[in-house]
């Protein structure tokens, strides 16, 4: 018997993927659930596991673009042979291609999809060509482009293809910059109390939750408290309407080998410090293993990014659309500060809040950050929902 290996769905908007890595070579023997191929979509990387045990016959190679549902190979369960056998002596190229393009008949996209293109449709297509073709109003004098052409040879350089993830990040960041009225407000936090609590309770917390008490849970909790106070920051714009989240799902920017990923910690208002730290730990592990899925990154109403782990003193984070605000954490530095008219040494972190001025006014953004500052400097306030 042969079992087909199909490209699984990778989420609603994903229709194709690129083969990024062949984990098991064609011709080798695989066990059920063994990793065979890694696919890269514009959102996430995905490993395909063997649907059965037997001899693997793959019909795709690295860089091939595959569609959801496409058969990319077979497992021959009849073929006997020692697992990890030497690759078959037949050169791979002579193998018959297994109709890589043969797709199973698909369900109609929608019941309303018309099979009849009437003369009126033809007229429309000719008179209103797709926007991409519409001539753009030419700038008076097109500025000479300093960027080299894609095909141009540039000395002393190397080239590599942008991955789908990189392209998505690039597109999303430009979109965030171009389609919002983004600006940043700053403040500083005295981290003395948080550091004391962490020191004092670390052992007990670890014992109870199995994870370390980090800074992030404090910041998430403080952010939730501030979001409750300023719901416009927990909102986004759709057309002419402002949509406000009733949930507090906080995205955490995680740097991975493949690039930046932003998994979501859902329902942060209802989670304990321990649960939040556990979630963060789980995502960190998934990120290291490249297992973060599209579902892990769906949704989210507010984002926190911590450039401090790399030593950043101060930065202006960029929005994570369609969200309206993002908090930047930075490195903690001992600084001389004035407390009760005395110059004292305190551990200080600068905070940055970038926000979409279309929906959030300066006053709210500043007050939001001041609210967070208050709760972070005196975490006990959060006990009584301040």
């Amino acid at each position, binding site marked *: 018997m042969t079992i087909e290996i199909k490209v699984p769905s990778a989420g609603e908007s994903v229709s194709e993927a690129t083969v990024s890595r062949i984990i098991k070579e064609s011709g080798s023997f695989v066990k059920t659930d063994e990793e065979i191929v890694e696919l890269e979509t514009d959102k996430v990387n995905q490993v395909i596991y063997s649907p059965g045990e037997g001899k693997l016959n793959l019909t795709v190679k690295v860089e091939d673009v595959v569609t959801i549902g496409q058969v990319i190979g077979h497992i021959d369960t009849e073929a006997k042979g020692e697992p990890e056998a030497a690759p078959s002596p037949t050169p791979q190229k002579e193998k018959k291609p297994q109709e890589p393009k043969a797709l199973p008949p698909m369900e109609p996209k929608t019941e309303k999809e018309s099979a*009849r*293109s009437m003369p009126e449709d033809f007229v429309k297509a000719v008179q209103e060509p797709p926007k991409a073709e519409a001539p753009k109003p030419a700038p008076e004098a097109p500025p000479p482009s300093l960027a080299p052409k894609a095909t141009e040879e540039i000395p002393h350089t190397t080239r590599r293809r942008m991955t789908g993830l990189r392209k998505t990040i690039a597109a999303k960041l430009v979109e965030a910059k171009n389609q919002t009225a983004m600006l940043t407000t700053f403040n500083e936090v005295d981290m003395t109390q948080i550091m004391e609590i962490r020191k004092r309770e670390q052992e007990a917390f670890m014992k109870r939750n199995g994870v370390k008490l980090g800074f992030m849970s404090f910041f998430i909790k403080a952010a939730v408290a501030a979001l409750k106070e300023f719901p416009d920051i927990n909102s986004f714009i759709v057309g002419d309407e402002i949509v406000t989240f009733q949930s507090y799902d906080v995205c955490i920017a995680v740097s991975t080998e493949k690039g930046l990923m932003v998994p979501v910690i859902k329902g942060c208002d209802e989670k304990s410090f321990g649960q939040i730290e556990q979630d963060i730990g789980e995502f960190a592990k998934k990120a290291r293993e490249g297992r973060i899925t599209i579902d892990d990154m769906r949704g989210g109403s507010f984002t926190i990014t911590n450039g401090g782990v790399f030593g950043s003193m101060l930065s202006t984070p960029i929005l994570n659309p369609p969200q309206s605000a993002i908090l930047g954490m930075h490195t903690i530095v001992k600084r001389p500060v004035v407390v009760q008219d005395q110059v004292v040494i305190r551990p200080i972190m600068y905070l940055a809040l970038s926000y979409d001025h279309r929906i959030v006014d300066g006053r709210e953004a500043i007050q939001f950050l001041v609210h967070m500052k208050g709760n972070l400097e005196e975490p006990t306030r959060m006990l009584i929902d301040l």
Partner: protein
Amino acid sequence: MTDTFDVLVIGSGPGGYVAAIRAAQLGLKTACVEKGPLGGTCLNVGCIPSKALLHSSELYYTLNHHLSDHGIHVEKAAFDFDQMMSRKRGIVTDFNQGIGFLFKKNKVAHIKGTGVLKDPQTVEVEGTSYKAKNIILATGSKPIELPFLPVDEKRVVTSTGALSLQQVPKRLLVIGAGVIGVELGSVYNRLGSKVTFIEFLPKICPTMDEAISKNFQKILESQGLTFHLSSKVISSDIGAEMITLNVEKGEEKLSFEGDVVLCSIGRKPYLEGLGLENVGIQKPEKGFVPINGRFQTSIPNIYAIGDIVDGPMLAHKASEEGVAVAEIIAGLHPHIEYMAIPNVVYTDPEVAAVGFTEAEAKSHGFEVKTGTFPFKTNSRAKCTGQVEGMVKIVSDAKTDTILGVHIVGAHASEIIAEGVLAIEKKVKALELANTSHAHPTLSEAVKEAALDVHGRPIHR
């Protein structure tokens, strides 16, 4: 006996039988109900027999009129009308059997009899009920008759009778100078009839481009056909020897005498006895069965195609729709570009058209550019002596997209395929003009017409 089919097609014309074969190819259990011989109007009393007679009569006409130009002289050429007719019958019978063979090969059940809808899943044929998950209505059309001119298919005939006359009439009156009229009128004109047309509209073949229609009329008149345009038949006297048609042409009152009258004023959907009312499909007063973009009637599992739905009443249009419906039922995504359905008149010369006429393009808001090229300066036409006619291309002045291709001339039916592809793929006039065409061919006239759109034909 009760049997459940995935697809049951009512009607075996070019819409129905093609739908049935395509459905069977896609693995659906399929049946096709037909009360007459397989093949519908097209095969039995339409396209096929008329083309057989057109060709036979054209050969005879060429013998008498054109061969001497080539230095070939034939003395006392004669034709045997009975043999022409039996040759035609032979062709039809061959095709009847051909469809039967295709049904067997594709395992399409051929159910003989009249299909009547009983409920959305049941069709009754001669007292037997058949269950079907999907039903395709493909019952075609029939000629429209005039109330004061009862058809007997012997002296007052529709296209059906005109294809089976016992003898060549001395005088043939044709009411309606549309495609069917000019084709059958041509047949009998070539065989010696005096053929007179009475057309209500001010031009012949009214769907044609104005320039083409005028050019075509001139050519037909040179062959001996007589046209009375803007003329309305108001009454008839059917005598023992002859039939008189009383006609109003503006203020003028005319009367015409003929041995046979062909009534070819159009066709209408054939829906009588189908049982639409049993399943709740509104029977349209006059026009077509309403369908959506997926050929579904108001009952989602009952589909309708061909002459009973809107669009030109053409065999190939029905066939495309038949394929599309079968594929829709099988879950595929077919697509029909209705702009790119060609229309052909098989006279000599032939007339073929696709897309918009100049007037239609203007009425759709286009700023129009046109290009024409006459066959009289085409090298191949000159060689064969078939120099009548022209090519006309209509294009959008803004985008240069070809909107219509119109041809009068020898083999127009074959040359038009290029125009159909151009419309289907939204080709620009300049792209067609820059495409290599074999020399010497008639198709070079299409290239030249495309060049003329841009004001720079080479051979003119």
